[in-house]
């Protein structure tokens, strides 16, 4: 049924439809309304789950690690400082191979306090072993929650889906909310191979020496790579039931493109407009929307970006002393290719600074008029 809902509600609906059994979360702007809505759903019996109202995000993550190890579907949501506080337990969840799903509303990191869109929070968790998926619309957010559980439980790795503060979290859009019967057909109940079980006692996460640890992590890495194939399968099944297509990345007007812009999150929508405008002027520009960030879809990125002249990566995040995270990862991925394109890393819109279609047009025109990047990265829209 079509409804007009905000991004945060899209998450709550997704959680409800996924028949989650344990939720634990701690409020932080702009995620708070997810917590409120889920509390209400649990209180009214709309969602048959236990909501553990913890005293911090660190505890929220630890609670779902406990619950998931006990074999039930578990969910949490956070943002910015909250995600950073979880860091230790994020590693734990992935290392323990738990199919937890986390929704992160991308918000800038302090100081100073800034509650607006910025992807530094989730990008800086890239080494935790979590699968990461970046969303562009509220429909995508809702669908991704449901798909995330299916993917997590196939790959036995936790999945973090992220979307931009306010641009999505607090903006209403038309969303087709799936029927529960459809979701049940897509997402079977969770049946873990191992769990805390009185009748079959096992020990989880104990002392492990150099003779096993290395292989454990290697297997985790391999499984993370394989998660791509699982993901494609999940997208296919999802499309069959719900009629909406998702992929590890999305291409827009890339067919004969000479320049491709790579984006994540809501800057994508803005870039679509910019691409259309430039196409009207006869400029051969296209867009690759990055959806799956971990595991890195290396082959896909190479296929889409490998044979064109110029690639621009717009990062709404910063790793100080290097630049944008995605920019550096795209460069690293393309480096071994013989005819690799020139990559133009760009940082823009930190801390919620608006990035309008004209900004993206400006960025692309800069790329078109320079054979090589003049600044690495280019900080677009910096006040002098």
């Amino acid at each position, binding site marked *: 049924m079509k409804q007009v809902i905000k991004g945060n509600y899209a998450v709550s609906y997704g959680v409800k439809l996924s028949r989650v059994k344990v939720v634990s979360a701690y409020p932080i702007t702009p995620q708070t309304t997810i917590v409120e809505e889920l509390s209400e759903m649990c209180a009214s019996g709309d969602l048959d789950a236990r909501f553990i109202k913890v005293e911090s995000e660190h505890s929220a993550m*630890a609670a779902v690690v406990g*619950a998931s190890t006990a074999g039930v579907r578990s969910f949490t949501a956070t943002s910015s400082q909250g995600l950073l506080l979880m860091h230790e337990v994020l590693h734990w969840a992935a290392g323990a191979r738990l199919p937890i799903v986390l929704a992160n509303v991308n918000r800038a990191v302090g100081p100073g306090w800034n509650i607006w869109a910025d992807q530094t929070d989730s990008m800086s968790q890239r080494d935790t072993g979590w699968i990461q998926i970046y969303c562009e619309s509220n429909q995508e957010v809702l669908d991704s929650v449901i798909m995330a559980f299916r993917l997590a439980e196939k790959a036995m790795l936790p999945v973090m889906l992220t979307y931009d503060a306010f641009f999505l979290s607090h903006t209403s859009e038309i969303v087709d909310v799936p029927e529960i019967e459809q979701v049940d057909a897509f997402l079977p109940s969770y049946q873990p191979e191992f769990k805390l079980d009185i009748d079959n006692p*096992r*020990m*989880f996460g104990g002392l492990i020496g150099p003779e096993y640890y290395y292989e454990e992590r290697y297997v985790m890495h391999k499984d993370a790579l394989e998660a791509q194939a699982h993901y494609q399968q999940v997208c296919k099944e999802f499309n069959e039931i719900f009629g909406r297509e998702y992929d590890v990345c999305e291409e827009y007007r890339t067919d004969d493109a000479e320049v491709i812009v790579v984006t994540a999150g809501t800057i994508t929508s803005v870039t679509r407009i910019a691409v259309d405008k430039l196409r009207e002027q006869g400029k051969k520009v296209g867009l690759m929307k990055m959806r799956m960030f971990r595991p890195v879809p290396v082959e896909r990125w190479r296929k889409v970006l490998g044979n064109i002249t110029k690639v621009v990566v717009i990062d709404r995040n910063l790793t100080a002393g290097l630049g944008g995270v995605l920019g550096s990862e795209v460069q690293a991925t393309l480096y071994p290719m013989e005819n690799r394109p020139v990559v133009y890393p760009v940082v823009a819109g930190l801390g919620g600074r608006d990035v309008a279609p004209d900004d993206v047009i400006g960025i692309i025109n800069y790329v078109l008029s320079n054979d090589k990047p003049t600044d690495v990265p280019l900080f677009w829209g910096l006040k002098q």
Partner: protein
Amino acid sequence: MQKTIDIPRELMTEKELLQPGLLSCQGCGASLAMKLAMKGLGERTVVVIPACCWSIIIGVYPYSTLQVPVIHVPFETAAVSASGIRAAFDARGEKDVVVMAWAGDGGTFDIGIQSLSGAAERNDDILYVCYDNEAYMNTGIQRSSATPVGAWTTTTPEGSIKEEPKKDIEEIMLAHHIPYMATASVAYPDDMYMKFKKVRYITGTKFIHLLSPCPPGWRIDPSKSVQITRMATQAKVFPIYEVRRWGFSKERGCLEENWKYTINVYPDRELSTKEYMQTQGRFQQITEEMVHDVQKRVDRKWDELVRKADGSGTRSQDPGGDSSL
């Protein structure tokens, strides 16, 4: 030795849930304590272990000495991990399973106190046990806020003596209005066993504080660890008591709030704090003045405790204490 109570043997779990192969030092109180705890709790128990000596003691992958499900969790998350597991077992319809967090004093008094406070305030249905060896032993004997005044550790070396009194964790936990709080030690195994037996039947957050001797950390002879722990109780440094929030009201025919303190072990001889401290190498640098202050604090606490136990009008004649729920 003072007699506490006899354990009714038929109550004991037949199965030995803690198997040989523990990696602890000789004379480790924490190991003996687990054996007794599991005797009381029985098979339908999940054990949650944060970073502490027990992360090692239990054994190295792929072996475990505990024959019940065990999960290791980050250092500061013992209580809330137990809360998460509790929620999941409730969702699975296995409400009778006891979820026990088993943490050291560092994981309880210091780094884990936030999540412990959260769980206790929510009154999550878990058992939290702190085996208190009065320092961070796993990392090589550093001070914690449970380290007593005057004790040597590697971070309170000679010239930097610990002057701050040990945190009063029992009162901190009671301030959370939890239904059950008790202290116990391996020096009084019958008492300890009974406490672990009874917590299975109490809903909500149960907290048990164990004094847990550690020969390398306390600089004592391993063969003396139980004896010295008993002296802690005889010297009233570590009183053995329990506090219960709810009592049965005959008039109303239901449970009602009725705080009840019960001293389970009354010292059977006069022993000073100084005599207790003299048994341990770790107190070598303590000054006379400090000992005097500690003695005063011990006396005041004991008097308070006796008053509270008296005040409830139920001071037990049987030092085995209150075995009602």
